[in-house]
């Protein structure tokens, strides 16, 4: 049976992890490669590396980093942040990334999804959606949640699915950083509406939250950052717990 996936997310700035300084037993806690290897050893199923650098120099550093990650990590990894056009995708896949995650650029120019799927295959194209629940429903946001758009979550996710996205990575801005659980209702609605896997993001604070995302939210994968980086939830323990709760995970 296909396993539900646990995905640590690492934010990268100028080649170093931004969070994750509390990780023990690492010579270089800030080194994204060392951190990724540690997660892989613990049983992470995939990794996501998000480049939050804005400068051109930073982009070059990130590409070099992706090469090092590809050389050393033996599980699949996705890279995202600052992917605006097909040449960015080409550069990162050539550096050894397995998948790329596109967010604002796809919302501004949905054709980018078709182009990525056509040139590199749907399986490399993760469409990340930042959305917030408003009195008018779930609205999509641009630029890391700074600019509200009129696009609705389900409608945009369906369009991305239709254009050839391989997965949807949905972050609830209402839940992100609050540690009260994932946006399970919206997740379940997405999962029912789409024919591609849905990755839950935003809100993990306890092991129960992961269980709820998989059972109530019908998510295929759950992504988290701080609970892993600060050692609050060790991945081996989380997986044993999920297994006990009847969820199929890779042990």
């Amino acid at each position, binding site marked *: *049976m*296909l*396993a539900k*996936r646990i995905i640590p997310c690492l934010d990268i700035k100028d080649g170093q992890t931004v969070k994750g300084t509390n990780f023990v037993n690492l010579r270089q806690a800030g080194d994204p490669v060392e951190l990724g290897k540690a997660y*892989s050893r613990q049983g992470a*199923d995939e990794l996501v590396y998000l480049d939050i650098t804005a400068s051109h120099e930073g982009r070059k550093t990130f590409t070099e980093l992706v090469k090092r990650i*590809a*050389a*050393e990590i*033996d*599980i*699949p990894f996705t890279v995202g942040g600052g992917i605006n056009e097909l040449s960015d995708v080409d550069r990162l*896949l*050539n550096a*050894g990334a*397995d998948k790329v995650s596109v967010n604002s650029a796809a919302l501004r120019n949905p054709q980018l999804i078709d182009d990525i799927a056509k040139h*590199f*295959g*749907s*399986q*490399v194209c993760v469409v990340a959606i930042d959305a917030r629940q408003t009195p008018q429903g779930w609205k999509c946001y641009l630029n890391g949640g700074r600019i509200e758009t009129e696009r609705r979550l389900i409608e945009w996710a369906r369009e991305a699915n239709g254009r050839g996205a*391989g*997965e949807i990575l949905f972050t609830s801005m209402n839940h992100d950083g609050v540690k009260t659980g994932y946006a399970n209702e919206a997740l379940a609605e997405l999962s*029912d509406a789409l*024919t*591609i*896997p849905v990755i839950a993001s935003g809100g993990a604070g306890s092991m129960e939250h992961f269980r709820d995302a998989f059972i109530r939210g019908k998510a*295929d*994968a759950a992504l988290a950052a701080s609970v892993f980086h600060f050692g609050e939830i060790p991945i081996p323990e989380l997986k044993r717990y999920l297994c006990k709760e009847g969820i199929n995970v*890779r042990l």
Partner: protein
Amino acid sequence: MKVAIIKYNAGNIFSVDYALKRLGAEPIVTDDKEILSSADKVIFPGVGEAETTMKHLRANGLDKLIKNLKQPVLGICLGMQLLCSRSEEGDADCLGIFDTEVKRFCPQRHEDKVPHMGWNTISNTNSRLFEGFAKEEFVYFVHSYYVPVNAYTAATTDYILPFSAALHKDNFYATQFHPEKSGETGARILTNFLNL
């Protein structure tokens, strides 16, 4: 030992190259026919589309070369599918090492998402690739087309239906999953191949 990775118009060649280097091998990524023919082990990787890739292989004479290889060959993902006789993907005639067809997954329920992507278990392992496997182990898959269970099946996986996770015939070995992305389990499979 000389390990050659067949270079062609497909993605994912770097991952295989890196994985072998992690195991201490020094693979050569090449489309040079002499190097490929004289290598001790040949790996035929691949992510891509069947028909386009077959056209490319034929145009470069690599189709005949692969069919005539006598040393252990490992086809991975699309590489495995291209070793079969034909594929529904682009209605392509393939290399015909394994006399079987490649079919597209047909979802039966809403939960049956295509591509089959993620970690799944392999069962009924029956090849030296899986030497030392005591239990069902998880490996990483990404594919929309599958090879039905047949006389050459060397491992099975269940997704929508039981299908061939691995094939073996004579010197040809193949996996539908990506050993180079399958953590420690994958590393053991690649090591077993290198030790054949």
